[in-house]
C-alpha cells in the first residue's frame, strides 16, 4: 500500500441497527482500492480510506446504496 490513500467521510441515512453498519463496511471493503471502512451506527457516518486511483467517490456511494442505504459525502 504505497499509494497515497485518502479518507472520506459520509453521513448515512436509513441505518436501523448496528448490523446495518457492518453490512456497509463489508460492502465497501469488497471494493478494490478500499483499505478500510468504519461505519458508526451511533453517529450515522462512515469513514472510508481508499486509493483514489483505484476507486471513485461514485463507486463508494453506489456500494453504500447496494448495502441498502443512502450516503452523502460529508
Amino acid at each position, binding site marked *: 500500500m504505497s499509494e497515497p490513500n485518502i479518507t472520506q467521510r459520509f453521513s448515512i441515512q*436509513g441505518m*436501523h*441497527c*448496528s*448490523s*446495518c*453498519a*457492518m*453490512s456497509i*463496511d*463489508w460492502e465497501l471493503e469488497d471494493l478494490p482500492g478500499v483499505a478500510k471502512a468504519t461505519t458508526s*451506527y*451511533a*453517529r*450515522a457516518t462512515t469513514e472510508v480510506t481508499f486509493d483514489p486511483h483505484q476507486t471513485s467517490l461514485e463507486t463508494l456511494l453506489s456500494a453504500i*446504496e*447496494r*448495502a*441498502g*442505504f443512502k450516503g452523502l459525502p460529508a
Partner: protein
Amino acid sequence: MSQPSQSRRRRPSQRPPSRLAQPQTRASAPPSATAKSIVIDRRFGLALTAIAGLAALSALGFRLASSGLSLPSQAGIAIADPDASLWLVFLTGLSIGGLSCVAVQGGLLATSIAARAVERHAGAVTIRAQLLPVTLFLGAKLLAYTLLGAILGLVGSKIPIGLQAWLMIAVGLFMLMVVAQMFDLHPLFRLIAFRPPKALQRLLRARSKQGSASSPLLLGALTVFIPCGVTLAMEALAIASNSALRGALIMAVFTLGSAPLFFVLGFAASRLSGLAFRSFRPLAALAIVAIAGLSIHAGARLLGYGGMRLGGETVTATQLGDPVSAAAIQSAEIQVRTASYSPSRVRIKAGIPTRLSLVSEQAQGCVRAFLIPGLGIERMLPVDGTELIELPPAEPGTVIPFTCSMGMYGGNIEVVQ
C-alpha cells in the same frame, strides 16, 4: 418476491457451463430500472404490510385457540406459562425479528450460497439449491439462540428475588428504549447496539466467502454475536425470565417467529430490508411496548405494589373462635390454578391473625411459587393440595399484595376495620 441477490454479488467467473448448471434465462437487473424499481418497492411495501397484518391475525387466532394450552412444568420450580408475553415475543419475531438483522445475516448467507455455487460450477443458484443452506442456517441459528436463552435464563435465576423485581423493571425500560431506537427518536438511543470485535466480523465474512457446505451451519450459529436492538431486548427478557427453560423458550420462540420472513426475504436485496423494516415497525413496536408493560408491572408487583388490579372477585375472611379472646383467628381460602389466584382480593379484619388456605388444583407454573413481598413470605405450593399460611395481625387500611414468583399473577389482601 425473493429475488436472489447473489447474482450481482458474486457472478461466477468465466467457466465452461457444467452439466450441473441449470439453464437460466433470468438476466441480471438492468441498471436503468430506477423508475421500475420504485414501483416494485411500493408494491413490495404493500405486500409486506398485508403479510404483517395476516401474521398478526394468525398469531392472535392461534393464541386464542390455544389459550388453554399449558406447558409441562419442571421439577419443583415454576417455568413456562401460557402467558401473553410469550405470544408477544413470537409476534415480535414474526413481524420484525426476521428483518432487523436481515441486512447483515441475509447478506452473509447469500454470499455463502453464491460462493458454494461457484465452487460447484453451478451457473446460477436455483430455489432448490437455496433451500438446504437456508434450513441449515436457520436450524443452527435456532439452536444457538435457544442455548443462549437457556444460559441467560440461568444467569437470571441466580439473581436474588429482591433484585429480580428491579431487573424486570429495568428490562421493561430497556425495551421501551429499543422502541425509541426503532423509530430513531433521538440519536442517543442509537447507543443501544452490540458489535462484535473486528476479528469475529472478519471471520464471519471470510467464512461466508468460502462456499463450503457447512458454512451456513457455522454462520447461523455465529449470528448470536450479531444481534440488533430487538434481539438485545429479547435477550434481556430472557435474563429477567428467571429460569433457564423459560429463557430458552423466549429465545426459541423469537427465533422461530423470525424464520418465515427470513426465508422469504433472506435473499431479497438488502436494499428492501429498510423498507420492510418500516412496514413492520408499528406492529413490532406495539408488541414490544406490551411486553415492556407486562415486565414493569410484574416487577412492581414483586416489589409489593399490587394495587393496580382493582377489579376481580372478593372474598371476606370468616372469623373462627371467640372474637374477643386471644385465640381469635380468621380464615380465607384462595384457589390456585395454572394461570390465576381466585379470588384475587381477600378482605380480612384488622387486629387478628389470618390463616390463609391456598388450595391448588392442577396448578402448574409460576403460580406455585407464592410470595407476599410485604411480609417476606415465600412458599412453594403443591400441584394439588392445600398449603396453610399464617399471617400476623395487620393494621386497618393496609393492602398486602401477593404474587407468583414472576409477578405475573397476583392479588391483594385488604385489611378492614
